């Protein structure tokens, strides 16, 4: 956010979520909403994350458990299909991995610097004991 001078912002400890007037916001997808630069949707609030989830769509059954349980609405789901993770908001808590019911899990936690393609290529196999 631009560092404005004392006379360049609206008074009060107040921030606007959207630019201009909004209409039917509940029926508008996040990417189609006109968020201001002050909104935490626009800003990255994940720069302290140490471990991150990686999503392997080969095993996902689109049960939506991760989407429901994510405390930061960071699971991106469209038409009831998991399509990715919002890395600007994910804090790396691992709850999505915990609730994932597939075998092997479709989401696993890795160090922040881990490479997605490398990790998916060496994804764990099905656990026969558990199955």
């Amino acid at each position: 956010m631009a560092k404005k001078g004392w006379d360049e912002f609206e008074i009060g400890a107040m921030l606007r979520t959207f630019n201009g007037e909004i209409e039917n916001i509940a029926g508008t997808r996040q990417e189609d909403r006109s968020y201001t630069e002050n909104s935490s949707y626009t800003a990255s609030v994940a720069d302290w994350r140490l471990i991150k989830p990686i999503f392997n769509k080969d095993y996902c059954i689109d049960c939506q458990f991760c989407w429901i349980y994510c405390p930061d609405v960071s699971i991106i789901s469209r038409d009831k299909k998991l399509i990715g993770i919002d890395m600007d908001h994910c804090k790396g808590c691992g709850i999505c991995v915990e609730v994932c019911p597939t075998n092997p899990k479709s989401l696993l936690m890795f160090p922040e610097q881990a490479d997605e393609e490398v990790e998916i290529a060496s994804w764990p196999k099905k656990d026969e004991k558990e199955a």
Partner: protein
Amino acid sequence: MAFNKMNLKDIEVWDGNHAAAQALRQAQVDVVAAYPITPSTPIVEGYAKFKANNYVEGEFVMVESEHAAMSGCIGAAAAGGRVATATSSQGFALMVETLYQASGMRLPVVLNVVNRALAAPLNVNGDHSDMYLGRDSGWIQVDAYSPQEAYDLNLMAFRISEDHDIRLPVMVHQDGFMTSHTAQGVHTLSDDAAYNFVGEYKPMNDMLDFEHPVTHGVQTEEDWHFEHKARQHNDLMLKAPPKIEEVFTAFEKLTGRKYNQVESYDMEDAEVCVFCMGTSVETAREVASEMREKGIKAGVVGLRVVRPFPFVQVAEALKNTKAVAILDRSSPNGAAGAMFNEVAGALYNTGIRTLLSGYIYGLGGRDLTKAHLVALFNELQANVNAGKITTQLQQFIGVRGPKLSYL
């Protein structure tokens, strides 16, 4: 639901609390969140009664503490309502944390502070300790010396506070019991005239505007906090004083009653002056007139607007004096009196070399008698005659025991 109007006589016999409650009714306050405390209780009780009897449309929110009372007012003001409450002393002290929230969030709230001493020892009577506690909180503070002024200043407070160029909360002070519980004749406005003067509430950044969602009360760190505080201070210093003057002028036009940021009495040729606040101003005026009959050119300066402090007007009011007594009705606890310091600061760079002495008086509701003021004016005259301050700079008036003087 329609509410009933009240037919008032031109002059009603009201105490300061009832006068304030009537002003809240006439302003048609939407929300009063309150936790009653002596001596301010009848203000919020009065509003509740008016509401119960259908003389006002609004919400009375009973809360569990003064901290919650002001928090409720902040929430209601952020939502977009006309908001007021009242408190005193310990309740005011508990409110302090939220006072800074209200002003920093730039929310209009009118808080009646019926001035009362701060414990310990516990005391329900009037002094200015609580008023002084609020002076750095970023609120506008105005002081009423009588029930009439408590009524008038409440009506004016909404208009100042809610103005979109100001958006700062306002405290209306009156002396506990001496003003709050002493009935006097109060010139009234009709309900319509009072409401028209206060005006329709105009929301700004209100949370009930669902087409423009806002987050109130955000957190800022070293990157933004300073700019917000600077803006608030700037608006108090530069925008509030002309707005206060504008509202005072509009009120005078409506009622003939003239208010000033600094109230001067017999100051045109005064050589000795008592500078004070609250009910003491009225007593000092009476004594000053009596001193004039004895050949002492006495005058009185009362501070009407405590914050923003009228630095220039104070110096202007005192420029022709030879000796001034600054009365502080709050224990400075280890310093010169706060008002002594503020007035000294206002005079220092002006070349006005009046003899300035400070007095601590009236703590816990101790009377300031006419005899005290006669002695005080005589002491000031002695200073003038000697061409210097003949006492120490800080003395106590009306306390028992060996004489106390410092500095």
